[in-house]
């Protein structure tokens, strides 16, 4: 159970021969994730931690069956890698790479929508369904199977909060890092919808930060749809001074949205509990789940 990835997920690793790709392939394998092949152009025929490497995704999929890909390819080539995975029929693509140009990310998202595929990231720690599948770079030992679904825009802050939950014996159904870039594949609402349908998930921890208006939109959604599962939110950036403004156009799109106050207020108005410190997420969650 959990969402998007589970024990049946079979993945390829694009950029498997790089430092990060190879380092994290080892940890994903140790966690029990089924990594069936790797792809690095020019390195076909070699192996990394026993995983066979191919020059192209097409070739890898001729030899193995896979339904997911995780990408560690450097930024200038990462969009190309994602499109290659999508065109070859992969339906779940996790893009770990950061610093991908916005224009490239927009192209990837548009194509993914056309072929009805799910993109996680870019600039994400990935996704983990504890005890079943880890497609990402998160330290596995801080997670344990359970009933809290986690959605976050951050990487390390997610680990901080997941570790807090685990310490209180509050395991997780699935944890997703949406990604820290302006253009990412999934938003909070997409994932809230998936968690709503997932029987294992009993409550949701939502971790946002300043900038953009995706938290405000999620709060609206929770209020309007009378979201049936309890949600605890944390927003990073309360103490941040007013950040750089994106000219007039940015201000027009966002209005007053984007500040920590705006997001916290939106969640409180939607009846969502908002944690003051990262460790309070677990405290609030424990109360809600014991009710």
């Amino acid at each position, binding site marked *: 159970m959990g969402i998007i990835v589970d024990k049946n997920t079979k993945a390829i690793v694009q950029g498997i021969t790089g430092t990060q790709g190879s380092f994290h392939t080892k940890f994903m394998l140790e966690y029990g994730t089924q990594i069936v092949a790797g792809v690095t152009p020019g390195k076909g025929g070699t192996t990394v931690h026993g995983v066979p490497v191919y020059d192209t995704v097409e070739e890898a999929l001729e030899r193995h069956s896979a339904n997911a890909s995780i990408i560690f390819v450097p930024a200038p080539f990462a969009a190309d890698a994602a499109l290659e995975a999508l065109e070859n029929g992969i339906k779940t693509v996790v893009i770990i790479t950061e610093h991908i140009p916005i224009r490239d990310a927009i192209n990837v998202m548009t194509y993914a929508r056309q072929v009805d595929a799910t993109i996680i990231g870019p600039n994400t720690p990935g996704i983990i369904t504890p005890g079943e599948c880890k497609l990402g770079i998160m330290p596995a030992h801080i997670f344990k199977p359970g009933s809290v679904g986690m959605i976050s825009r951050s990487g390390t802050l997610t680990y901080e909060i997941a570790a807090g939950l685990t310490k209180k014996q509050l395991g997780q159904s699935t944890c997703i890092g949406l990604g820290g870039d302006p253009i990412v594949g999934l938003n909070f609402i997409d994932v809230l919808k998936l968690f709503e349908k997932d029987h294992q998930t009993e409550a949701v921890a939502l971790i946002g930060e300043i900038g953009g208006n995706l938290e405000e939109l999620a709060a609206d959604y929770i209020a309007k749809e009378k979201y049936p599962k309890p949600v605890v939110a944390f927003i990073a950036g309360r103490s941040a*001074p007013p950040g750089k403004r994106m000219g007039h156009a940015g201000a027009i799109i966002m209005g007053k949205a984007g500040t920590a106050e705006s997001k916290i207020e939106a969640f409180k108005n939607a009846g969502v509990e908002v944690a003051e410190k990262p460790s309070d997420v677990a405290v609030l969650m424990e109360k809600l789940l014991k009710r």
Partner: protein
Amino acid sequence: MKLLEYEAKKILAKYGVPTPKGGLATNIAQACEIAKTLKPPLAIKAQVPVAGRGKAGGILFADTLEEVEKVAEKLFNMQIKGFPIRSIWIEERVHAKRELYFGITVDRFNKGYVAIGSTEGGMEIEEVAAKSPEKVLRFPISPLQGFRPYHARQMAKHMGYSGNQLSTLANIFHNLYRAGIDHDAELIEMNPLVENSEGNFVAVDARMIIDDNALFRHPEYKEKAIEGELSPQEIEAAKNDLAYVKLDGNIGVIGNGAGLVMATLDVIQLYGGKPANFLDVGGGAPSDKIAAALKIVLSDQNVKTVFINILGGITRCDEVAKGILQAKEKLGIEKPMVIRLVGTNEEEGKRILTEAGIHVLDSMEEAARQVAEIAREPRKNGNNS
């Protein structure tokens, strides 16, 4: 990276968008030379990378050479939002019958670009958007088709234009779009785009922000991105690929991941401390990057104590520990440090630091409480560790 007005206008002119005749000056004499070649009345505009320049007094007017001299002197002695004025742009004033707004930016929710237009442009465009959103046209751009000439004509039509004016305006919109896409702009806008008394259109002000992550495709701007108008710490940080923002407290902060660093600042404040900076070393930082980060944070004279908060995923704790020791050795750090280190290769990292006599904590909140306390203590002389 934010371009200055004149840089944005140069690009627009290259793409066939009409801009007022003008020139750039970096001193008063040069300003007068340029003014001689232009037809008064003139506008003299400070070139600074901030919004709200007009309201801050950065745009002045002159009818004669004497006035140009006076106004230029005034501007060169001014600062706008902390930015000294190093150059001014002098241009012929355009009589505005009407001020329009047109720009293209990124729409996060729809995962694409969006064109925005209004017939009520000018300095109050944000208020217009907030109070009467119906006066602002938003046109989502399909990434498959792009912003086609007929889309531009549709927008011009919706803005109430027809005939020759419609074609001219649509051309300007479309050219602005091409300039934006070709330069990987996350924002490109004309505000105001003036309709003058003859019914012609001129982009009187322009702004452009190039996506930093796309600078590898635009090497001509890469050098400039690092120089710019930055503090010494910010320049050092940019060179080392670190994200640094100066704040006004006395606790230096280093962490990995923007969200965690922001939360760290929040928690420090919650315990009554004042962060001196935001510094995110990013993912997978090797030891020399950690050392560079420490050097940058400690070069701020206000810093009394440093809080390093690392939760390793892609970052390895042993590398962080090595970086801390490396910096301590090279820089002879005596200021107290509070270190919180957990995650990937945690045992090895802790062993390295503990063997060097540096205490390591597990809890971020406990560490934040301790560092806030240290920062409150009166400064001790000599050895603090």
